[in-house]
């Protein structure tokens, strides 16, 4: 077992885990933060995307021990003081989700995009979420949602 200490959504979380524990399972099983999802096993679908030290990452392809000492933001940590994040608002306003399974990862990827590129073009948005699969929406309303958030910021 290995001791890990990760700041998750602003709170320091400490636990003993097997070294092979994937970060996504640490978040979901140890911390009960089940908003982060698993949609594949080859590091492609992006449903498990979180921010690690401010940058998007696929938490299914990171061991919890690697995140020791890092700051992780999950979908649960995005709204502040009961105020939805502009991206969350955008996804709601623009019907950027259907089944909702890819949504947390999609939003975290979009957050990474807007941090890097506050006013992205549509092509930049589509490229910025190219590490996230959505089977429901055809992406158009997701693009609209990110544009909404970009306009609002």
């Amino acid at each position, binding site marked *: 077992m290995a001791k890990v200490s990760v700041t998750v959504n602003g709170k320091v979380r400490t636990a003993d885990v097997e070294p092979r524990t994937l970060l996504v399972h640490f978040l979901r099983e140890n911390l009960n933060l089940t908003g982060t999802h698993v949609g594949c096993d080859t590091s492609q679908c992006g449903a498990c*995307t979180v921010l*690690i030290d401010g940058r998007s*990452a696929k938490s299914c*392809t*990171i061991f919890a021990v690697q995140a020791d000492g890092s700051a992780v933001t999950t979908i649960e940590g995005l709204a502040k003081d009961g105020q939805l994040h502009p991206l969350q608002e955008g996804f709601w306003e623009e019907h950027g989700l259907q089944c909702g399974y890819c949504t947390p990862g999609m939003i975290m990827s979009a957050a990474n995009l807007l941090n*890097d590129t506050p006013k992205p073009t549509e092509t930049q948005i589509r490229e910025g979420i190219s590490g996230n699969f959505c089977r429901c929406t055809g992406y158009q309303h997701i693009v609209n949602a990110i544009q909404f958030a970009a306009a609002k910021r």
Partner: protein
Amino acid sequence: MIPTHFDYARATSLDDAIARLGASAGGAKLLAGGHSLIPLMKLRLSEPTTLIDIARIPGLSGIMEKDGKIQIGAGTTHHAVATSALLTEKCPALADTAATIGDPQVRNRGTIGGSLAHADPAADYPAILVALDAEIHVKGKGGWRSVKASDFFQGLFTVNLQPDEIIAGVHVKPQKAAAYAKLHQRASHFAIVGVGASLEVSGGKISAARVGLTGASTHALRLANVETALTGQALSDATIDAAAAVAGDGLDDLNADIHASANYRRQMIKVFTKRALDAARARA
């Protein structure tokens, strides 16, 4: 998908990592971004007994210019390479290549050293590093050595690296007239064929050319016949067309899979050689 058990250690320095590698009797693997290794471990195609995490070794990541060369630490992420102002100014082809790897999340975690050590036959970096005549700096028990990119990739997932050696960094000369062009595999976005090309031009003539190929074979290769066809010739459409036309000739055992037959790959080597050369020329 769940990896098998392993022990985990965080290395504090290159020497610490090298010592740990040596002590593991071959069961250890280095872990940086983990974006080549962890997917394999999850599929249980790789079952290391120990992972030595080198991600936080001080000085292992970062991009700087020193002694006329650009030095890229092995732990530098693809994202950092793709967005480096230094590279964008002085070696844009390398930044462009990094920007085509995987997707944003992969680029945020994956590292140049990890990619090179893993040496996926369809990885992007090898082709451009061969074209840029990059030097790969490795350190082992015996000390430092430097390997030319064209000598580094030796076979399928096989590189010029001893079991107790670590890639510390990649050095490239500033080179503007270079480019990477890639045929994307639509599922994985790895390269079906990727070609890196760099040109040195003086007085309207190509004084030197280097062309690297990835995706088509077991490992990245140098397309020497293309380089020969370019060197000493006028920088012109005709020269590039003639050089691209021989790209891939003489290569045996081209990869074939559901995405592309060997014959198609062979033709795409020509197409993407031309595209890379045209793009390099546009920067000359």
